[in-house]
């Protein structure tokens, strides 16, 4: 999908854990809290299911930013899922920044099922950051047209 400056819209992929952040997003909807339409939510059972390789694949395929979101440590429906997520993404974020990806493009946040306003605020904030940064060209597959 070719990227031209004028018509570009940020494309942000959110990996949301089913029990907390996805439910928080639902509550954001129930409460009609508006946020930019730049976000696509992908449901996973637990933030522990989010493989850093999915994030690499997403950037390769042309996503502008990825948010990894799950329950607050201690609240995980599977008791320990998010503790592993925390370790993996503490390392992953530093590694991605180390190879040159702008830090705003890969974020991780804990958002519980009750924190609808926080979900709205996080999404709005990331969307603005990415709009400022512009389209992501790093780590991307080469583009071809036929």
């Amino acid at each position: 999908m070719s990227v031209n400056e004028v018509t570009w819209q940020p494309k942000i992929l959110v990996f949301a854990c089913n029990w907390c952040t996805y439910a928080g997003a639902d509550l954001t909807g129930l409460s009609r809290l508006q946020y930019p339409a730049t976000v696509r939510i992908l449901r996973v059972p637990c933030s522990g299911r989010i493989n850093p390789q999915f994030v690499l694949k997403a950037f390769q395929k042309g996503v502008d930013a990825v948010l990894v979101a799950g329950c607050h440590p201690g609240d995980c429906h599977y008791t320990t899922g998010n503790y592993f997520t925390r370790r993996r993404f503490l390392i992953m974020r530093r590694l991605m920044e180390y190879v040159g990806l702008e830090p705003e493009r890969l974020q991780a946040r804990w958002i519980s099922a009750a924190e609808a306003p926080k979900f709205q605020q996080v999404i709005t904030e990331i969307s603005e950051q990415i709009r400022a940064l512009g389209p992501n060209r790093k780590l991307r597959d080469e583009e071809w047209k036929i």
Partner: protein
Amino acid sequence: MEDLTLVLRRTAKEILEKGEAQMVIGWEKGAFWYSSTSAFISKPEDTERLIWDEYCVNNLAKYLLDYRHKEGKVAVFVKGCDSRALNVLLQDKQLKREKILIIGLACPGMKDEVEARKLGRGSSIPLYKKCRECRYPNALNYDFFIGEDKVIKEIPAQDDFSEVQALESLSPDEKYNKFVANYERCLRCYACRNICPACNCRECIFDRTASGWSSKANNVSENMFFALTRALHVAGRCVGCGECERACPVNIPIMLLNKKIIQDINALFGEYEAGTDVTAKLPLGGFEFTDPEEFM
């Protein structure tokens, strides 16, 4: 070094004659004066081929994987980095300790083969960078040790992350351009993976294109995906033996990624040196409730 070779041969011969092991894995002279290669000796009289000189850089630990299902024991000579590699293989349950006879060595640091080839026989040849920075020259975990256990190499106080910090200080675009420049020339020959002791899967996802994770196409995007994925897979288990960099036909500084992760693991989860203690819990195999919190 010279007399140690004789001790080495005698030890190997005794082992084979007494039947303590079916085979001894060591080094023998290769085609050139600056290269020694691995040797697999099963007959006592062949132990004459074994040598111990400043070019025995090959990490022999991973060869044990080929004999883990064979009957009897296998003896292997290990330097400091090799023994750490062996510990990682034990930690990953890929080898059974009782099937291995480990003969430890004190390593003086191995000479850089590429430099040796350039400078020629007479001149003084520098050690490999990884050997200069090496903090575990002596085998850690062995059945018996050859040569006095005294340190015959000065050991730096702690790991040298200066290159990593230098890279960290650059701007995102500069970092990215360096990263691309390195991995543009990657051939995807997987030498770095096949020589790495921490890469001991039975079937690697990069060997199964049907799994959908990667394709065989050689473009910079797939190469970067491979490099980052492998770095994450060996995170917390890379012993810093530097064999990946030595094996790479196009000399990509692969250790820059691994060192970065080692530095971050130490900073985030506490000092951890892979392969120094077989019983240790792998940093990315568990967690602490008190892990740093950045995602509130």
